[in-house]
């Protein structure tokens, strides 16, 4: 319609209103006059005229609608009325808003991480062309073969490295990435200051460069732009800073402080291992690229100077980068989203129940409004507006709760290990919240509103009309309570399974004694402990570099002399840290030859390692100080490895060797299996491969510049404080980091599954409480509604005990129905949890039975109070009720 004219009419609203009134009054008078002329009596004529004219008010409203904005106006009216109404019953409003806030807040928190990880695209130009390559690590030389052979995509590579930055204050440990010269070009990212690496920066002599992260630039160099071009000492090497990255950049993850070039230098080509990623050429799909990479595989595998295990690289896959980064988080996030959706549904049915109860007391109000000429659709609209208003208030309160929830979710999502920034409330999250608020408002509002509106006017106006419609209401409420119990059961079973699995995880023996253990990382510079790799022991320079070895030995000696220390040892890797796989050939065992080696965990450990960790020696001997470069090569195998390689035989005296080395090593001992990780990593599967231990002084391939000191002590706090001082006295340039007790290490390792368990438990407790409140209010209401009936039955001699049982049975029936439905639904759904469970099946009967019992007990408890109230009704008072 003509909007301008409409607005003009609207401006003269008061005048037009008055005119319309006068005109309609005139009409009635003329009609009355005519009727009188036809011979009616005056009063009769007037009544007749009025009746024919109909409801003047609604007529006026309809007439006005043609020049007003009826929907907007009535919406504002409804909104105002709704607010007034909510303010008038603060108890109801508070309960409903809080219930909804819990549901919406939990959804917001989980959705914000889904948004950050699954919906947002990666912050790189044409990010859809970036691909990750599933091959784990491979030697630089092998990567170069792929890079030269692949035409469907540009490959780049990186590896993580710890680096010491000295000068400008005390030495600090930085997280570094060693990256190929095209690393930044493949990502398509430029430096904020200076430049990124250019082709040729990977050639020896030209590689003494570094690029800093924004964070380090700020914290260490006070954001001074002049730092570009300056030379700093990184790990004992002078490097020129050529660029500063933008704050938002963090690849391969957001913890990286410094990027240095990967240098292509002969002795390191097979010793330095890297990870690949790439950018497919325009128009090429990941699948085409995968086919090409796979076709290169045999040629690359054949170029290794030692034999790789059979089938190595058969799992090679090229997948979109985003998919790879999110990985198994996807399942966890979607499961959590499912859980919070259930919580929200329960919250909705609870609020719906509250509204139903309230509708009963508002019936007369609604009926009066209907009688005064309000259209049904108008009343419906008003009731829905009220519930949406309620939902929006809930959403606002939910948004206030969300940051706390997001804090918890962050513990599951290792934000810093991902190249994406932040779980935050962006516009998409806000739209999501607004949408679920509207949706929940309609969802919990529609049934009570439809019902309130359906009640016949005459019946409602007579106050005694109660029985039939209240039975109807009870049926609806009962269904809602059953739905709530069903959903709560599903959640509680999921939580129960996770709790059981967590218990299993933290109570299963680790194979060593984690009490009173302190671990710390020693990280000398590359200059002091150069990384090394060789085909014979003489060429392996890692632990065997004299300066490096001397340093470690003096540290160990100093630590052992410190009062309060029972024993101390070092190793390149400890349980619940970063683990490493290696391959061995077995003497006189054609199944595991150098050409098809056996793969398992590998640890390079110092002399007192087994004693310090409390790993029991099952056969043979432990390593001694005499197992060094000049003595024959030895190894110790774990129980599982011994069973795999020599079932039923004595492993002591057998010979194995790292598959790329020449010299055999004799097995001198067998130790108990150590469970070195929490949830099994994907590669381990269900059958553990076992572990092999080499003496640190006869090291194989080892990275280099990190050694972990393990100390058993009765006074962990004192020792933790003393360690940096002890090490500093020997060489102040070596940072001592990650000083933690073993219990803390394990706790942190299990933090993600524990947080998920915790969240699911919290969700199910919420669900359980909401369900219990729903059941309680339903039973209370029905007891109150039956006060008279109960009174009569008592007057007629009914026993109080029977009445009590009667009411309890009613509550329990609903509970049983909900629990049965919930258990059935859970049977269909729990398989989704499989990857999150440790040591139990998703169909664990103990959990199912325990959860069912708890829910039935809660149902009983929720109906007990109203049942007691029913049993204590005084018949005399009840009969006089109303």
């Amino acid at each position: 319609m003509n909007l301008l004219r409409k607005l003009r009419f609207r401006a003269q609203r008061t005048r037009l209103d008055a005119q319309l009134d006068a005109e309609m009054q005139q009409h009635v008078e003329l009609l009355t006059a005519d009727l009188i002329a036809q011979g009616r009596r005056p009063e009769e004529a007037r009544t007749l005229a009025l009746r024919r004219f109909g409801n003047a008010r609604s007529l006026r409203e309809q007439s006005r609608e043609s020049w007003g904005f009826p929907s907007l106006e009535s919406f504002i009216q409804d909104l105002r009325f709704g607010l007034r109404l909510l303010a008038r019953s603060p108890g109801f409003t508070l309960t409903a808003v809080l219930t909804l806030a819990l549901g919406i807040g939990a959804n917001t928190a989980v959705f914000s991480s889904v948004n950050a990880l699954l919906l947002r695209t990666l912050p790189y130009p044409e990010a859809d062309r970036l691909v990750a390559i599933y091959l784990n690590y491979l030697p630089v030389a092998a990567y170069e073969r792929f890079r030269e052979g692949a035409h469907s995509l540009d490959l780049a590579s990186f590896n993580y490295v710890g680096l010491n930055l000295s000068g400008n204050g005390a030495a600090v440990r930085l997280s570094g990435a060693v990256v190929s010269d095209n690393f930044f070009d493949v990502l398509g990212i430029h430096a904020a200051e200076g430049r990124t690496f250019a082709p040729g920066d990977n050639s020896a002599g030209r590689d003494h460069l570094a690029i800093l992260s924004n964070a380090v630039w700020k914290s260490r160099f006070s954001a001074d732009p002049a730092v570009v071009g300056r030379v700093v000492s990184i790990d004992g090497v002078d490097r020129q800073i050529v660029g500063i990255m933008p704050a938002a950049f963090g690849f391969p993850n957001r913890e990286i402080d410094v990027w240095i070039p990967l240098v292509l230098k002969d002795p390191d080509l097979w010793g330095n291992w890297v990870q690949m990623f790439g950018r497919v050429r325009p128009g090429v799909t990941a699948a085409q690229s995968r086919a090409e990479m796979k076709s290169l595989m045999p040629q690359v595998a054949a170029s290794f100077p030692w034999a790789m295990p059979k089938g190595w690289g058969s799992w090679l896959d090229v997948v979109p980068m985003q998919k790879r980064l999110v990985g198994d988080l996807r399942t966890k996030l979607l499961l959590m989203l499912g859980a919070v959706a259930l919580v929200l549904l329960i919250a909705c049915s609870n609020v719906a129940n509250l509204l139903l109860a309230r509708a009963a007391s508002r019936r007369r109000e609604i009926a009066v409004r209907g009688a005064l000429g309000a259209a049904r659709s108008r009343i419906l609209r008003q009731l829905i507006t009220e519930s949406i208003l309620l939902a929006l208030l809930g959403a606002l309160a939910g948004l206030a709760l969300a940051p706390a929830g997001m804090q918890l979710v962050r513990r599951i999502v290792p934000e810093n290990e991902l190249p994406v920034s932040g779980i935050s409330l962006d516009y998409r999250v806000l739209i999501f919240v607004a949408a679920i608020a509207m949706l929940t408002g309609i969802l919990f509002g529609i049934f009570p509103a439809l019902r309130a509106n359906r009640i016949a006017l005459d019946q409602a106006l007579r106050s005694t009309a109660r029985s039939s419609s209240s039975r109807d209401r009870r049926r609806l409420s009962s269904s809602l309570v059953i739905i709530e119990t069903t959903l709560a059961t599903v959640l509680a079973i999921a939580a129960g399974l996770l709790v059981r699995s967590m218990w299993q995880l933290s109570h299963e023996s680790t194979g060593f004694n984690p009490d009173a253990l302190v671990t710390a990382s020693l990280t000398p510079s590359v200059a002091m402990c150069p990384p090394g790799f060789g085909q014979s022991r003489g060429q392996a320079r890692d632990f065997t570099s004299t300066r490096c070895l001397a340093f470690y030995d003096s540290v160990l000696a100093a630590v052992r002399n410190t009062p309060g220390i029972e024993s101390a040892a070092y190793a390149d890797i400890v349980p619940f840290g970063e683990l490493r796989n290696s391959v061995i050939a077995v003497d006189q065992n054609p199944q595991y030859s150098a050409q098809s080696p056996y793969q398992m965990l590998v640890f390079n450990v110092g002399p007192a390692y087994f004693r310090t960790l409390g790993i029991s020696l099952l056969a043979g001997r432990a390593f001694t100080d005499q197992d060094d470069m000049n003595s024959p090569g030895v190894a110790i195998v774990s129980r599982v490895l011994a069973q795999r390689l020599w079932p039923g035989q004595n492993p002591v005296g057998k010979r194995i060797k790292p598959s790329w080395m020449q010299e055999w090593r004799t097995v001198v001992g067998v130790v108990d299996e150590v469970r070195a990780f929490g949830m099994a990593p994907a590669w381990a599967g269900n059958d553990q491969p076992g572990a092999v231990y080499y003496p640190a002084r006869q090291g194989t391939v080892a990275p280099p510049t990190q050694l972990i000191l393990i100390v058993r002590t009765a006074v962990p706090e004192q020792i933790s404080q003393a360690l940096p001082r002890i090490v500093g006295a020997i060489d102040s340039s070596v940072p001592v980091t990650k000083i933690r007790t073993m219990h803390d290490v394990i706790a942190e390792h299990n933090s993600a599954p524990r947080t998920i368990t915790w969240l699911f438990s919290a969700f199910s407790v919420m669900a359980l409480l909401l369900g219990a409140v729903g059941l309680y209010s339903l039973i209370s209401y029905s007891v109150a509604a039956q006060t008279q009936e109960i009174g009569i039955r008592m007057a007629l001699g009914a026993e109080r005990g029977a009445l009590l049982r009667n009411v309890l049975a009613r509550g329990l029936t609903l509970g049983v129905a909900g629990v049965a439905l919930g258990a059935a639904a859970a049977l269909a759904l729990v398989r989704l949890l499989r990857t999150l469970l440790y040591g139990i099946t998703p169909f664990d009967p103990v959990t199912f039975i325990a959860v069912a019992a708890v829910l039935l007990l809660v149902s009983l408890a929720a109906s007990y109070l109203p049942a007691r109230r029913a049993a204590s009704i005084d018949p005399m008072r009840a009969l006089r009720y109303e």
Partner: protein
Amino acid sequence: MVRPASRHDARNEMLPGTLDMLILKTLCLGRMHGYGIAQRIQQVSHEVLQVEEGSLYPALQRLLLNGWVKAEWGTSENNRRARYYKLTAAGRKQLGAQMASFNQTIAAIFRVLETA
């Protein structure tokens, strides 16, 4: 709505938009107040069509808003102030258009009835 006076079938309503056209046609005779319009339609149709007040006033507001009629206050036959409606030029044009399309519809209905 304009509906036939016989109330046997209350749902037997006329085609939508018909009332607007009837009002416009009635106003061709000159200015008239609301009550007069209703009376006139009733008389001319020999009491077959009764105009309900519930439809008349919303329809008049609609016509005013579209600029097809103008309203002015005057004195009625019984010396009372009354609001008179007058057809505008735009209203006359609209009437022509509506009648043309109405005639087409009627003719179409007849054709259906004759062949059926």
